[in-house]
């Protein structure tokens, strides 16, 4: 079991140095990426503890994690700031956009409007926990194939939401997909392709 505190976030360095390079635009398609982003290395989370913290133990992406956190910390902030999982995004921080969607015991929730300390013993899955190693989850594959995103900021939430949707309803109609994905905003409006991706994943085509 990992003991995670604000002073010692696990895997933070490896995770973020990889993704910072990626985010800086390194784009190697079918080729060897020789570019190196002159980007900073990565490390520890916020330097100072808030005055009072509570312990919470939960399973995130299959790993048991324990952290101490301010009881007012949202699950989203705990995931992003304490556990280094920046897949879930903060688009509005009030449950209106869906970019922070994660799975709680397989069910979709908005991690920005719920407190981390409420999840003692719970099992949380973020977008980072969907792939099986290098093998993408079928929904992730379907989003790539159908170009179900443009900027991609909402995509973590869209994909996590779609995975939850298909667990609730494995063979949704188009109308049901739209109804059940309507809590996830996409400002680029890749909506037609999102519908196509979810349909494709539901039919096992991806």
């Amino acid at each position, binding site marked *: 079991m990992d003991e995670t505190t604000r002073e010692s976030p696990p895997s933070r360095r490896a995770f973020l140095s990889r993704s910072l390079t990626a985010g800086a*635009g390194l784009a190697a*398609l079918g080729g060897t990426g020789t570019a190196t982003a002159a980007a900073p290395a990565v490390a520890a989370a916020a330097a100072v503890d808030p005055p009072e913290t509570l312990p919470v133990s939960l399973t995130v992406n299959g790993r048991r994690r324990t952290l101490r956190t301010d009881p007012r910390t949202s699950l989203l902030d705990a995931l992003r700031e304490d556990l280094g999982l*920046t897949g879930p995004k903060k688009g509005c921080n009030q449950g209106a956009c869906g970019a922070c969607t994660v799975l709680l015991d397989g069910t979709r929730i908005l991690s920005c409007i719920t407190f981390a300390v409420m999840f003692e013993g719970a099992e949380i899955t973020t977008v980072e926990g969907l792939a099986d190693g290098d093998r993408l989850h079928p929904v992730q594959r379907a989003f790539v194939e159908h*170009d179900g995103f443009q900027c991609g*900021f909402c995509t973590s939430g869209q994909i996590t939401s779609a995975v939850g949707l298909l667990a609730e309803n494995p063979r949704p109609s188009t109308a049901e997909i739209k109804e059940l994905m309507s809590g996830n905003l996409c*400002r680029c409006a*890749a909506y037609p392709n999102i519908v196509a991706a979810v349909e494709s994943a539901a039919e096992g085509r991806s």
Partner: protein
Amino acid sequence: MTSTDTRTSQGIGQSAPRPDGTLKVTGEFAYSSDLWLEDMVWGVTLRSPHPAARIRSIDLGPALAMPGVLAVLTHEDVPGEKHHGLELRDQPVLAVDRVRYQGEPVALVAADHPERARRAAAAIVVDYEVTEAVTDARRAAFDPACPKVGERGNILRHQPVRVGSVFEAPVVVTGEYEVGMQDQAFLGPESGLAVPAEDGGVDLYVATQWLHVDRDQIAPCLGLPAEKVRVSLAGVGGAFGAREDLSMQVHACLLALRTGRPVKMVYNREESFFGHVHRHPAWMRYEHGATRDGRLIYVKAEILLDGGAYCSSSPAVVGNAASLGAGPYEVGNVEIDAYGVYTNNPPCGAMRGFGAVQACFAYESQMDRLAEACGLSPVELRIRNAVSQGSRLITGQLIDSPAPLAGMLAELEAFPLPAASDGDLRELPGGVAQTTHGEGVRRGVGYGVGIKNICFSEGFDDYSTARVRLELAGGEPHVLVHTAAAEVGQGLVTVQAQVARTELGVERVTVAPADTTVGSAGSSSASRQSYVTGGAVKTACEAVRERLAELAAAHPGLTTTALLQRFGPVEETREYRHRPTFPMDPSTGQGDSHTQLALCVHRAVVDVDVELGLVKVVELAAVQDVGKVLNLLALEGQIHGGSAQGLGLALMEEVLVADGRLRNPSFTDYLIPTILDMPPMKVSILENPDPAAPYGLRGAGEPPTLSTTPAVVAAVRAATGRALSRVPIRPEHIALT
């Protein structure tokens, strides 16, 4: 649709997948708000609560005394230029003795925790003397007694267009139209990380649209030479114009240089509404005169655009509104006056469609009125007046490449109409929240036409730079493409790689991170990057190819691989410019102000509950001429996205401003289209090449935004019989007026 033979499997014309796609679906793509550094501290902005006030004093003491606070800065701490701006450097880095809009940055705090920084900012005591806020754009423009918001008066730009002298006609229609303030509402908030460097400079990782012009505004404010401010693109969570101006860039750099620590700033959603410019709200008066058979004789218009407190890109927005103010129609007599004005409302600037959107809603509404007055169908009236290759714009500019508007309209009209609603509650306006059984639902159909200039206009030196390197990697040819062009979701990294594959016949292409160590690529705006950066990559590849050909000629018998082995990598850097444009004449508006024009036409089918005022867009159909399809999948995404934002402007999106104050800075109160609001789309894409452009392409991202709005409104008018002269349409405009 034609397809193109390419030398590689993922070249131009192929729906190549996004190189950053896997990272985006696994959550690993690092957006600017995801960046993290050891010893990083957090920056927060204190903003003005007043739209207009003098600052008597600022007491930083309470903030400085708080634990964890490392720096508190005001304008006195700005070492260089105190102002920045895209066209006019009139916007203070931090307010200097006066605030001109609600939300104007006044002071900055850096602390070791974001909450501590926020609390410290709240502890700063600013003594404001509230002054009269100018919030009526008409008064700002035309009332000599109105207080001056700008240093040189309230009119930012007045651009007339004058053609001909016949302003009488057998058929005359007039109208007054209003467009509300739209927000880009990208999902990824303004954010970035500034890292102080050992040479006294700063490295900034930021989500932006235009790295070099960011740098060229940041460096003077910091009192640093440009080479000491290095800007790299972080992951961008959407842009749509809102990242063309600076937001937190200078602020984070100031705090980083002051504290000697990396500084991260991330706006929350509410702050984001104050942190970027919006689409200009507009008030427009139009008069169209025509013959009885519907041929335009004249167009008169007054277009008033509220630029808010600072200049931003308002002058260019005014230029577009004026030059495109009559739409893609032939008309021999024109009297247009477009104004951009300063007020104490939120600053307005770039948003997808850039000045052409507002005018399009008005002139298309007028064309519908004219059709009715002449007893013609909306499509027939438009076809009778449509421009084509060889026509002249109202600026006198010749349309010298294909502009098949009449044919596009005919094709659009011929699309089959969708079936009537089958009574499924989810299909009714309002969806499952509907409280009736659809008794009041009426269907309507409407058309809209738009014309948008592609690339920067009016004499701007508009170019992009690409560095292309052909080398061996693991014994195989590999291409590295480096530009400063901002990928904002439009798929530009994909297109750059596709161009390189096509030009060099090499499969393996890497697009390097965008930064300021290569020349400027200009802005990711004006639908211009495929054209200009695509052109730069193509030109640099051609130069690499020429070098290779020279080597091959000198050393016959050697393969490319052997040449690269013997002589090392071949690298070329090239700038690419489109054909020059020219200023508009200040009193007549005449001049070849645009380099390329793009057309899109939309048909909207709506169901309206006329008793509840609810609208459901049942279908959007579009025909767009893109010159050449580079990547069909990405292109269709642009057409979907542009159409959705036009739909949003028609039906729901408005930043509400009362007495200079924002009323709805949140996603619960500022509504954008959801997946349920997005109708199925029928899209036809034409490829009539523009010989002046790389591959004959035409910029594609903005045109669909223009024509959707008037099409949707026309459809709602057809369903309701209401005049509907304002967007967004509200339920009460349908049901209660």
